[in-house]
């Protein structure tokens, strides 16, 4: 099981302070390929801060990050993306006035030469073809990759944002509250998509307040409370009450505290 696999992304001893607030203290975090880990905790527990440190938006005060076993320095979002770590934030960062294909390739448009070395134009055909392929592979249901994003439903927009995160050779995908503000059917679409990412061998991190969704789609659950990692759960071996207890700090029988299996051995 988990202890036999090597994590694709590992953070050790991450600490981050904002002025008087210790947002994170000595937090370890690991993501395995083909594994969906849920990151849960109350407001202010440090979930967003942790993934922003991993994604290079913040710089941790202390701690080290390892990717595929090698220590790396993630000093900016570009570093994270270059490694293959993609993040989908809650606002999705989609342009409503552009179509799905344009959004998938935003900032990285394919071009072709009209005059060699002098004039490059956007290669709409290649991008559309590629977009259709990605969308088909991930079984994302949209009318067309030429649909303007403004015309898509919440679940379709989320799926489009996730598709964009996946298509650039990413190895780890972090989703911040992917099902908040989505209806039942759309939540189902997004959860199916998350499972497909796992089946493709990606490591997936899901931040969510919705424990039902977390239990439905995650293999492991890591609980943060007040900036510290307090529990790790195997989804199949626990239930919501234990997780809630860890989130709120209530005493409720034995809980798994702190370090993941196998850390001492390293």
């Amino acid at each position, binding site marked *: 099981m988990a202890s036999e696999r090597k994590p694709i992304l590992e953070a050790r001893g991450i600490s981050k302070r904002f002025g008087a607030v210790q947002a994170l203290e000595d937090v370890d975090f690991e993501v395995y390929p083909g594994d969906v880990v849920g990151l849960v905790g109350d407001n202010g527990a440090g979930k967003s801060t942790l993934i922003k440190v991993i994604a290079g938006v913040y710089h941790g005060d202390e701690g080290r990050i390892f990717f595929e076993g090698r220590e790396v320095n993630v000093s900016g979002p570009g570093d994270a993306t270059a490694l293959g770590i993609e993040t989908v934030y809650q606002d999705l960062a989609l*342009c409503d006035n552009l179509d799905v294909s*344009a959004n998938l390739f*935003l900032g990285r448009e394919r071009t072709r030469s009209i005059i060699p070395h002098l004039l490059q134009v956007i290669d709409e055909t290649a991008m559309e073809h590629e977009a259709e392929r990605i969308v088909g592979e991930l079984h994302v*249901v949209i009318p067309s990759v030429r649909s303007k994003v*403004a015309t898509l439903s919440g679940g379709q927009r989320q799926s489009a944002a996730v598709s964009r995160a996946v298509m650039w050779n990413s190895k780890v995908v972090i989703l911040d509250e992917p099902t908040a503000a989505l209806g039942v059917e759309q939540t189902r679409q997004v959860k199916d998509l998350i499972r497909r990412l796992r089946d493709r061998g990606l490591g997936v991190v899901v931040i969510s307040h919705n424990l039902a969704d977390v239990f439905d789609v995650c293999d492991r659950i890591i609980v943060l409370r007040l900036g510290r990692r307090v529990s790790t759960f195997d989804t199949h071996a626990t239930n919501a009450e234990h997780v809630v207890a860890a989130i709120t700090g209530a005493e409720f029988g034995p809980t798994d505290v702190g370090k993941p299996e196998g850390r001492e051995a390293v």
Partner: protein
Amino acid sequence: MKSANKESPSQAAIPAGSGEQPASLIARLTGSLAEVDIGSFPVILGLILIAIVFQIANSHFLSPLNLANLMVQICSVGTMSVGVVLVLLIGEIDLSIGAVSGFCGSVMAVLSVKSGMPAPVAIGAGVLTGVVIGLFQGFWIAKMHVPSFVVTLAGFLGWQGALLYTLGSTGTVDLADPWLIGLVNARLPVWLGWLVAVLFIAVYVFSGLSDQRRRIRAGLKTTSSNWMIARLALVAAGVLAAVGIMNVDRSFTRVPIQGVPLGVLVFLGFIILFDFITRQTRFGRSIFAVGGNPEAARRAGINVDRIRILVFTLASTLAACGGILAGSRLLAVNQSSGGGDILLDSIAAAVIGGTSLFGGRGTTWAALLGALVIGSISNGMDLLALSSYIKFMVTGVVLLLAVTLDAYARSQREKSGR
């Protein structure tokens, strides 16, 4: 593919690669006219309506002489309107374009008349002044974070002062250089007009067909070849008709006056150039992204500040070009150059043609359509010798109607998921 599951369950998803278009006639027509912004469709109808109304009121409206005059009349405001489209696309506004056009026109005029500079130098200096002004205003907006409304309003006042200063005590500078006078008014020889038209049509048809071929090779959905041919034929016919009308001898004397005025070619050249830039280059795509969601653009790696600075630079440069064209048409630059309704006409033209005030939507052809609408109303009313107040009121009503219709049509389209 399963059918899309949202508000309209009756809307079946179009399977990829099927080569079929949605059934309704309007959908097919607008889908095939997708090169031009779909929102322009009601404006084109409005333009036809205006033409019919004025032709009935005054049979000279659609005469070759009047139509050629109309095209020359709109080339200055139209050029400035292209700059307005760019600024509106990123969701900003530029209130200084009128004053910039007047000031840069005066730089050209003064250098030519008072300093005796040759025409290319005078024109170059005028355009360069626009570039510098645009860089300055763009920098102030993007880096100093002062709203574009305020910066360009300050420009509106400041560059007007600069115009008065440059013109000096005489207040008017009459152009004498034949190249400057000819910039707008010179007429292409008839054969050259036809040649340019044929070249344009050839490039248009070629790019349309090769695009179609590439899509077929990639296995993508394509517009049916009937509609493709119809669209190409329509555009070709339009271009040939326009050149033909301008090549007809429109003189009342025995001295023939015929040929496409150079100013019209310059104006259309700007439209085609910036249409290419906005729709076919990564820079243009970035403009749409910044207009749609600046934060998303930033996260995608687009330098939002740089885009803003460049757009305002282009707007002021095009305003300078408009001012130079206006000076050439009027054969002079005076204290009212760039003033009056020119600012609002440029903005109204862009908006009437289908550009959204909120950013992210529009094409440069909107500048052509809007300028034609405003120009036709003005021209038609002049033919009917109507008072100015009627002109203002009608233009105001047309602007209101055009934007309302466009907003309505757009909301209908969005409901049906297109």
